[in-house]
C-alpha cells in the first residue's frame, strides 16, 4: 500500500499546489515540499524495514508489492512492486525532487502553481516507472512523465525552449511508440505460446520467442530506453533540452529521466530478451564507449555551462550502458552506483549553474571568471561537484565507474581501454569548468551574493550522499544486491544450456557474488 502512497501523494499534492497558488504565492512551494518530504519518509521507512535486502522468496526480490486487477479483459493489472533497485531509484527521485523545489524557489515567479503541478506529476510518473511491474502500467507511467516534462521545458525554459521541448518530445515519443509495438508484440506472442493474455512482467519473462523476433522486440525496447539514457546517435535532444530547461527541469531531466532509461535496460531489455541482448551486447558496448568519449570531447568544446554539464551526462551514462551490457555482478553494481551518483553530482551541478545564472544572468563561461573571491562558498561547492563528476576517488561517481570498468575488463579489454580515455577527458572538462568560471581575473567586476542558507541546505545533503557513496557504499550495494542477483538468475535460468559468455556465463559462474 505504501507504494500507492508514493505515487499518489505527489499527484494529489500537485493538484493542491495548483489550487494553493490562488491562496498564497508561496503555498504551492510549501505544499510540494511537504508532500515530497512525506514521500521521503515513506521511502526511508521501507528502506529501514528491508535493510540488507532479506528476501522471503528466493529469486524474487520484491520487498513489497501491490497487485490489483485493472483491465481484466486485457489481462492488465495495477501491479507495483519494489525491490532494492527500485527503492534506491525512488529515493533518488524523491531527494532530487526536493532539491528541484528548493532550486526553483526564487527562479519561478510566473505560473508557480502550475509549475509545481507539473514538477510533482513528473516525479509521480518517474516513481511509477520505477515501480510498475505490468508492462501496460509501465508504459502508462512512461508516457505520463513526458507531458509534464514537456511543459517544464516549454513554459519555464530559456530562449529556445519551444524548439528544445518539441525535439525532446518527438524523440521520446517516436521511440516510445516503437516500444509500445514491441510490448504488444510480446503480449500477442505470449498469448500464442501460452493462451494467456497478460502484461504481467514476471509472467512474460521466459516467453519462448524465435531468435529474430526476439531481436526485433528487444530493439523496440532498447531504442526507447536508448533515447532516454541517451545512447550515442540518439542523444541529440539532450543538450538542447538540458540547456533550455529551467533549473528544476534540468535537474529532473539529468538526474531522473535519464535513469529511467538505464532502469528499463536493467529491468526489461535483458531479462525479457536475454539471448537477443547477448547477441546485441557487442554493439551496445561499442555504442557505450563511443558515447563516453564523444560526450567528454563535446563537453570540452562548450562554453555554455549548462551545455557542458549536459554533454558530461552523455559521457557518464555511457558507463551505465557499458556496465549493463557487460552484465556481470561487478559491472552491474557499477552501473547502478553510477546512476545514483550521476543523479546527485549532475543534479547539483545544474542547481549551481542555475544559482549562478539567477545572479549573473549568463551561462557563458567566457563572461564569468574570477568568481572565487566573490562567492567562495558557491565556487567551492562547484569545485566539489566538478571533481565528483570527473570521478575523484572517494566520491560516488568514482565507485560506479571503477566497478563498471572492472567488470567490463573481464569481458572485453579493448572496450575498457577506450572507456578509460573518456575518464581522462573528463578530468579536463571538469577542471576547465572550474578554471574558466571561477578562477582568473574578475574581468567583469561581478559582485553577487554567495549561497543563501536555502541553497546550502540543498547542496550539503548532496555532498554528504556523494561522500557516503564514495567512502562506504556497502549499505547501498547490500540494498540492491538481491535485486540484481534475482535479475541475473532470471537471465541465466533462461539461457541455461545455450553456449554462453558475457551476459549469461558470468551470472552462472559467479552466481551474483559481490566484491
Amino acid at each position, binding site marked *: 500500500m505504501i507504494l500507492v502512497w508514493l505515487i499518489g501523494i505527489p499527484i494529489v499534492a500537485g493538484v493542491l499546489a495548483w489550487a494553493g497558488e490562488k491562496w498564497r504565492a508561496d503555498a504551492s512551494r510549501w505544499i510540494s515540499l511537504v508532500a515530497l518530504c512525506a514521500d521521503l519518509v515513506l521511502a526511508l521507512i521501507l528502506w529501514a524495514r528491508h535493510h540488507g535486502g532479506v528476501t522471503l522468496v528466493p529469486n524474487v526480490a520484491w520487498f513489497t508489492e501491490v497487485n490489483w486487477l485493472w483491465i481484466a479483459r486485457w489481462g492488465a493489472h495495477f501491479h507495483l512492486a519494489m525491490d532494492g533497485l527500485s527503492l534506491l531509484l525512488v529515493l533518488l527521485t524523491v531527494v532530487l525532487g526536493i532539491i528541484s523545489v528548493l532550486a526553483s524557489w526564487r527562479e519561478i515567479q510566473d505560473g508557480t502553481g502550475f509549475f509545481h503541478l507539473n514538477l510533482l506529476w513528473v516525479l509521480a510518473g518517474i516513481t511509477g516507472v520505477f515501480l510498475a511491474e505490468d508492462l501496460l502500467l509501465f508504459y502508462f507511467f512512461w*508516457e505520463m512523465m513526458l507531458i509534464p516534462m514537456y511543459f517544464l521545458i516549454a513554459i519555464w525554459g530559456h530562449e529556445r525552449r519551444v524548439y528544445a521541448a518539441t525535439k525532446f518530445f518527438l524523440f521520446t515519443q517516436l521511440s516510445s511508440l516503437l516500444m509500445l509495438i514491441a510490448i*504488444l508484440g510480446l503480449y500477442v506472442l505470449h498469448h500464442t505460446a501460452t493462451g494467456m493474455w497478460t502484461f504481467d512482467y514476471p509472467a512474460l519473462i521466459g516467453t519462448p520467442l524465435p531468435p529474430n523476433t526476439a531481436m526485433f522486440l528487444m530493439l523496440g525496447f532498447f531504442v526507447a530506453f536508448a533515447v532516454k539514457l541517451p545512447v550515442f546517435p540518439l542523444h541529440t535532444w539532450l543538450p538542447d533540452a538540458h540547456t533550455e530547461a529551467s533549473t528544476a527541469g534540468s535537474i529532473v531531466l539529468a538526474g531522473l529521466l535519464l535513469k529511467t532509461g538505464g532502469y528499463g535496460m536493467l529491468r526489461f531489455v535483458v531479462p525479457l530478451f536475454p539471448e537477443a541482448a547477448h547477441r546485441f551486447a557487442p554493439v551496445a558496448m561499442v555504442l557505450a564507449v563511443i558515447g563516453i568519449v564523444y560526450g567528454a570531447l563535446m563537453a570540452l568544446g562548450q562554453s555554455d555551462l549548462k551545455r557542458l554539464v549536459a554533454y558530461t551526462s552523455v559521457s557518464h551514462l555511457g558507463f551505465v550502458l557499458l556496465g549493463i551490457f557487460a552484465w556481470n555482478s561487478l559491472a552491474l553494481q557499477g552501473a547502478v552506483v553510477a546512476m545514483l551518483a550521476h543523479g546527485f553530482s549532475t543534479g547539483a551541478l545544474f542547481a549551481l549553474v542555475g544559482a549562478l545564472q539567477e545572479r549573473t544572468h549568463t551561462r557563458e563561461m567566457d563572461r564569468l571568471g574570477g568568481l572565487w573571491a566573490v562567492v567562495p562558498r558557491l565556487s567551492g561547492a562547484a569545485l566539489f561537484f566538478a571533481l565528483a563528476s570527473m570521478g575523484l576517488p572517494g566520491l560516488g561517481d568514482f565507485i560506479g565507474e571503477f566497478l563498471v570498468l572492472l567488470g567490463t575488463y573481464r569481458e572485453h579489454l579493448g572496450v575498457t581501454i577506450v572507456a578509460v580515455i573518456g575518464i581522462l577527458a573528463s578530468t579536463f572538462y571538469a577542471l576547465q569548468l572550474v578554471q574558466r568560471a571561477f578562477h582568473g581575473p574578475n574581468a567583469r567586476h561581478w559582485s553577487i551574493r554567495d549561497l543563501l542558507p536555502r541553497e546550502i541546505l540543498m547542496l550539503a545533503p548532496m555532498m554528504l550522499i556523494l561522500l557516503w557513496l564514495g567512502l562506504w557504499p556497502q549499505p547501498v550495494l547490500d540494498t540492491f544486491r538481491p535485486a540484481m542477483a534475482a535479475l541475473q538468475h532470471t537471465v541465466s535460468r533462461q539461457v541455461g544450456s545455450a553456449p554462453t559468455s558475457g551476459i549469461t556465463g558470468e551470472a552462472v559462474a559467479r552466481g551474483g557474488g559481490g566484491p
Partner: protein
Amino acid sequence: MNGADWTALLPLILTGGAAIVAMVLIAVHRSHGLTLGVTLLGLVLAFVALRPAASVAPLQVTPLLIVDDFALFYLGMIIIACIAVVLLCHGYFAKCEGHAEELYVLLLLATLGSEILVTSTHFVSFFLGLEILSVALYALTAYLHTRARPLEAGIKYLVLAASSAAFLLFGMALVYAELGTMQFRDIADRIALGTGLHGAVLLAGAALLITGIGFKLGVVPFHLWTPDVYEGAPAPVTAFVATISKGGMFALLLRFFYGNGGYRVPSIYLVFTIIAVASMLVGNLLALQQRNVKRILAYSSIAHFGYLLVAFLAAGAFAVQAVTFYLVAYFITTLGAFGVIAMLSDGEREADDVDDYRGLFWRRPMLATVFTLMILSLAGIPITAGFLGKFFIIAAGASAAVWALIIILAVTSVIGLFYYLRIVIAVFSALPGEAEGMQPRVLSLSAASAGTVIVLAVLLVWFGVYPAPILNLIQVAAGGL
C-alpha cells in the same frame, strides 16, 4: 410489423417524432428555449428507449433494418453525441443573429439518418439513411447563410456529397445486377456460394461502393471536402459531421464488409490498405502546414480514420472492439475539442486561429485544461481515452501481424505530434506576467456548453484510466455483429 418490431425501432421513431414535433412547434410558437427542450426530451426518450429495444434484440425488422447489440451500442453513442451537440449549439447560436430553431429539426433529422445507417442491412435503407443524413447536413453546414464561409462550405459539400451518392448508387446497382439481391447477408451468401468476387462487374460495384463510403468517412483520396467543410461549418455542426456522420458510416462499413467477408478479398483488402496508409500520411503531413485549428482538426480526422482502417484491416478477434473503442474515444475527443472552439467563438467569427488560443490557460484555466486534454487524446497520450484507443488498435494490428501498417501508424502519429504540440504550446504560452498587454476576448460562456465539455473531459479521463466498464459493453456490442 408486430409489437416487438415497434419496440425495437422505438429509438428511431422517437428521434424522428421529435423532429416533427419540433417543426410543428416552430410553426406555432417560435422560441429557442422551447425547441431546445423538445429536442432534448426527444433525444433523452430515444436513449431511454434503447432499454426496451435491447430486450427484444437481436431482431430483424423488415428486410431493411436490424436491431442487434452492435446497432444498439452505436445508437446509444450517436444519441449521446447528438445531445452533446445540441447543448453546444444552444450556447453557440444564441450568440449569432437569425433564427436558431430550425437548426434542431435538422440536427434531429441528420441523427435519424445516422441511426438508420447503423441499423441497416439492406442497400435501400443504407441509401435512405445516407441521404437523410446528407441533406440535413447540407443545410446545417450553410446554416449561417449570411456569412460567406459557411455558405461556400455548404455548397461544396452539396456538390461533392451528391456526386459521391451517385457513385454509391451506381455501385449498388452493379452489385444488384450481378447478385440479384440487395440484402447484406444474401450478398454474403451468394458470394460464399461460389459466385465469388471475381466478376468485373461485381468488383466495379465494390469499388464504387468504397468510393461512396470513403467520401463520407473523408479518407484519402476522397478527403478533399473535409478541410473546407470543417473550417466553414459552425463549430458545433463540424463536431456533428466529424462524429455522428462519420461514426455512423464506419459502423455500416463494419457491418457490410465484415458481414459478407468482403474485406478478405485480396483486391479489396489492398484498396483499403492503400486508403489507410494514404490517409495516415496525407492527413498528418497536410495538417503540418495549417495555422487554422479547425483545418488542423480536419486533417487530423483524416489521419484518425486511417488509424481506424488499420484496425479494420487487422480483422482479428480484437478488430471490431478496437474500432468501437477508438470511435468512442474519438467521439468524446472531437466533441470536446469543437465544443471548446464553439465556446470561444462569438457572433462575429470562429475562434479558429492558433493565435486565438495563445495564453488561454492563464485566462481560462478550466476551458484550456479541457481543450488540452482533448488535443492530447487526439495525440494519443496516456490518461486519456485516445491513448487506450490507439493502444487497442496497435494491439489488434499486432495480433493480426500487420506490422508494416502499425509501424506506419506509429511514425505518422509522431508527425501528428508536431501540430498537436503547436496548439498545446499556444494554449500555455505567454505566462501571466507576459500577458499583460493582451486583450482577452470577452466571452459569456453558456452554462450548458461548459457543463457539456466538462462532462466530456471527465469521460475522457475515466475511459482513459479505467476502461473496464465500457470495454464490457463494447465486447457485448462486438459480439452482436
